């Protein structure tokens, strides 16, 4: 954590980090202004910025009789798209991980269940979630359901595999110590095996969220008509390259936000773990 460092150090750190991106953007801007690049292929950063602002800003003029000020401020297309994408990621992830976690715990803890289900898992696991697109449309039509189905498949396998190996890799010494203290099966599972496996499970969850985020963009290009993935594909039809790039940057920021959130959650849940400084 940087809480111990002063603001001047943080400022200089920020400036050092910002130097290279600033130079790249400046060169890109100058080349565009000198007319070296076709703006349809690669628009100037300033054009992207303007477009980004338009994408973010409310579409209609403020009308107090229709809605409150804050609601109006948040009514722009970008926020609606980001919300739609985030909603799909969260719901899809919760379904996928919510099924994978108990299944993984059962497979990791019980040899019989593992032997029974592992062959099926091994067959299904290598199929990329994208390959489920035709089937998902056939089963669920268009709209949110096929998108959420694809996302939950993307989240399912990383969480499942990591949960299984987390449970299977619990250090035998903890099991022995707990048995010595008199722990029965339920206590062993809830107070020893589950917490010992959490570092693996959380790694799986983080990979799962990452996969879900990739799948949401793809599925929005196919099955729905809002969301960040849909918007950049739509922009291409109008040759709005500035909007495509603004959309991509928004996707990047949302991804960064999700990953930072997951990292915070990890650090909170694993504050006991050796690798993490308190």
């Amino acid at each position, binding site marked *: 954590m940087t809480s111990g460092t002063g603001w001047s150090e943080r400022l200089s750190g920020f400036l050092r980090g910002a130097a290279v991106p600033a130079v790249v953007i400046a060169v890109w801007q100058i080349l565009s202004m000198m007319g070296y690049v076709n703006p349809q292929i690669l628009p100037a950063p300033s054009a992207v910025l303007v477009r980004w602002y338009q994408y973010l800003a409310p579409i209609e003029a403020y009308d107090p009789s229709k809605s409150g000020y804050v609601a109006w401020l948040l009514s722009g297309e970008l926020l609606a798209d980001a919300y739609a994408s985030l909603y799909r990621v969260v719901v899809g992830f919760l379904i996928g991980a919510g099924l994978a976690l108990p299944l993984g715990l059962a497979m990791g803890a019980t040899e019989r269940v593992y032997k029974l289900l592992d062959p099926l898992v091994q067959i299904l696991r290598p199929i990329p979630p994208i390959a489920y697109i035709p089937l998902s449309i056939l089963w669920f039509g268009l709209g949110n359901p096929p998108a959420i189905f694809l996302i939950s498949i993307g989240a399912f396998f990383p969480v499942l595999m990591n949960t299984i190996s987390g449970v299977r890799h619990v250090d035998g010494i903890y099991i022995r110590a707990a048995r010595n203290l008199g722990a029965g099966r339920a206590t062993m599972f809830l107070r*020893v095996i589950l917490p010992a496996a959490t570092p693996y499970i959380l790694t799986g969850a983080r990979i799962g969220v990452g996969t879900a985020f990739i799948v949401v963009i793809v599925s929005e290009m196919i099955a729905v008509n809002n969301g960040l993935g849909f918007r950049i594909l739509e922009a291409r039809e109008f040759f709005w390259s500035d909007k495509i790039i603004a959309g991509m940057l928004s996707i990047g920021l949302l991804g960064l936000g999700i990953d930072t959130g997951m990292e915070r959650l990890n650090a909170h849940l694993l504050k*006991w773990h050796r690798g993490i400084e308190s």
Partner: protein
Amino acid sequence: MDAQIRIRNAGKVFRALGKEVEALRDITVDIPNGQFACLLGPSGCGKSTLLNAVAGFSLPTSGSVEVDGRPVEGPGPDRGMVFQEYALFPWMTVEQNIAFGLEIRKSPAAEIREKASSLLAMLNLSEFRDRYPKDLSGGMRQRVAIARVLALDSRILLMDEPFGALDALTRHNLQDELLRIWEAFRKTILFVTHSIEESIFLADRILVMTYRPGTIKRDIVVTLHRPRDPGDPGFNELKRELTQLVMEEQRRHERDEVLCAAR
């Protein structure tokens, strides 16, 4: 005589990869209530195997082990175990580790809190009660592990080289503390070590083991007054005798390894 730990003709043969290793052969020992007994021997002579048979982690393949007149069938909180690797639960704070055994037993919350507090105080851990094991030194961790089994109030403590990984000074402090605890609670302690000095410093009785198959080579009662002083002539005489016994087994061990390597 009412021996608390009664081992009768215990043997243990490991079968792994088609090979058989006879780790213990025909061990017969009685350990009476309140005795501090050390198992001493070179690495690989079967000390842990014997301790694990008493703890119930791995039962003997022949003979029997009885505790308080009942055959040992599995591990249980009547025989608290302290491991060389501490085996603290890293996701629990110091206090939670100590309280865990009592929670399993479903003791009332107030009693758990009170017991944990008094153990924390006894082992000088009070200011670390909310820390996680990763933030503690090795000596502190082993103190927590000792407090964790003391919370069980078991009459038997089993300790497998508990101080083996500690530096000399910390080790000495913990030996003192263990004696203090033993004198206060009069537990029966079965303590594994390969340090001759440690065994003389601590034990009422030292069981020297042979190397493969592990048997009891010599059963020595230590009558020196406590606190024992490594400068004392009696201490040194015993040390010479034990060194002689352990060295014989150590040499057999080395010869064995040379033979294995040559094969």
